[in-house]
């Protein structure tokens, strides 16, 4: 099953109105993405870490997640120190390690991880359904919202379909290796997933038509924007703006 690992909990951030969280997360990400000075970035990283603590998430799991998504950053650490011109601080054979290169890689690491942490603390603490619903209130096109609802529903069916087919393969002694047989098998597996889900989508759509679907989705639970949402939003936004001015 595909799990929304961080969305379970009852911290302040879990209860905060998803609309507020989306706006704050977008603002934070946009500002950090274009900031290139260390002082505000350290503040942003602290703010991001603070939000993780407020969200009462398991630190171990957050760190594990960070390690996985830092692979691109790792690539930069491998390449940038050698390709940057400027003062060399260490010579490795014929390759010079540039101080500027290391500094730059470090800067990008802070930026990237701050944004990821805020994403975990603010976005991943809501369920996808609530986030998509919130996006509808934030004027995302109706069609796109419906597509997201459908798509999220199908991710689970298709994933369990995949697991079922994969088990069938294992039972028959299939072992994935680097050869045509493996690739053919995987391609047929994908093909079968497509065929089955295509048939299912037809059935679902017909069932919807039978029940009078006219291109509109009605949502049953509504958000209420209360005082703590307002205060939480204002505090976070002023922190972000304040850090930008440093």
């Amino acid at each position: 099953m595909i799990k929304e690992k961080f969305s379970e909990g009852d911290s302040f951030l879990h209860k905060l109105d998803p609309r507020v969280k989306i706006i704050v997360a977008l603002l934070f990400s946009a500002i950090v993405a274009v900031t290139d000075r260390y002082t505000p970035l350290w503040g942003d990283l602290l703010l991001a870490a603070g939000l993780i603590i407020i969200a009462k998430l398991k630190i171990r799991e957050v760190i594990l997640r960070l390690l996985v998504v830092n692979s691109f950053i790792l690539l930069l650490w491998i390449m940038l120190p050698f390709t940057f011109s400027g003062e060399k601080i260490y010579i490795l054979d014929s390759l010079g390690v540039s101080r500027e290169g290391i500094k730059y890689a470090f800067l990008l690491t802070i930026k990237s991880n701050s944004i990821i942490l805020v994403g975990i603390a603010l976005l991943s603490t809501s369920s996808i359904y609530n986030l998509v619903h919130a996006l509808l209130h934030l004027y995302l096109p109706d069609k796109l919202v419906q597509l997201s609802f459908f798509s999220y529903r199908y991710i689970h069916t298709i994933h369990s379909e995949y697991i079922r087919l994969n088990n069938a393969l294992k039972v028959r002694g299939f072992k994935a290796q680097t050869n045509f047989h493996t690739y053919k098998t995987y391609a047929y597996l994908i093909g079968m997933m497509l065929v089955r889900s295509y048939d299912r989508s037809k059935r679902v759509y017909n069932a919807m038509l039978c029940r009078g679907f006219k291109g509109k989705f009605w949502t049953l639970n509504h958000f209420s924007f209360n005082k703590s949402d307002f205060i939480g939003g204002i505090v976070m936004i002023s922190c972000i703006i304040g850090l930008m001015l440093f």
Partner: protein
Amino acid sequence: MHISEGILSAPVLVAGASLTATAVGYGLKKMAYKQMPKVAILSSVFFVASLIHVPIGPSSVHLILNGIIGLLLGWAAFPAILVALAFQAILFQFGGPTTLGVNTFTMAFPAIICFYLFNRGIKGKNNFFALTLAFICGFLSVLLSGIMVATALVFTGELFMQVAKLILIAHLPVMILEGVLTVFCVGFLRKVRPEILDLDA
């Protein structure tokens, strides 16, 4: 092949976001309500495919399938891929809010190109010709995505030139793999359920 948050420069991020917004808008406009379930299904297939790891030599890579998505969806590939990437960002933190535009464009633009180049050919009578096109489709979709990622990096700064080159070279085996998979997959669909290959189905 996601570009992480916090790396690209502001002009590249803004360009990616506006191109993606325009294309998604156009894709949504062209998508009839009737097609919604199919688009959603392919969006989820794109998501699930990224969880399927296929061995290649000593390492393994995950499937991308943007070529097939493009073939089957046309312009609706843009909203489909956007939604899948947004879910990946929220559930796994691969990519994020600011890079969503660029990442969607690098995946979905090649899909559209593949659609216009091969959509007709892979439905044709000649089996060999159709499967040859399928290989080129799978290969080209990843190649173009790689080129777009590289372009986004190089436009951010010249110093990313080496990183960009490395990413392109590293994706060469993936291009061949996706080509082979697309051949088998299109061959399978032609035999089993040819109507899926029709855009309006």
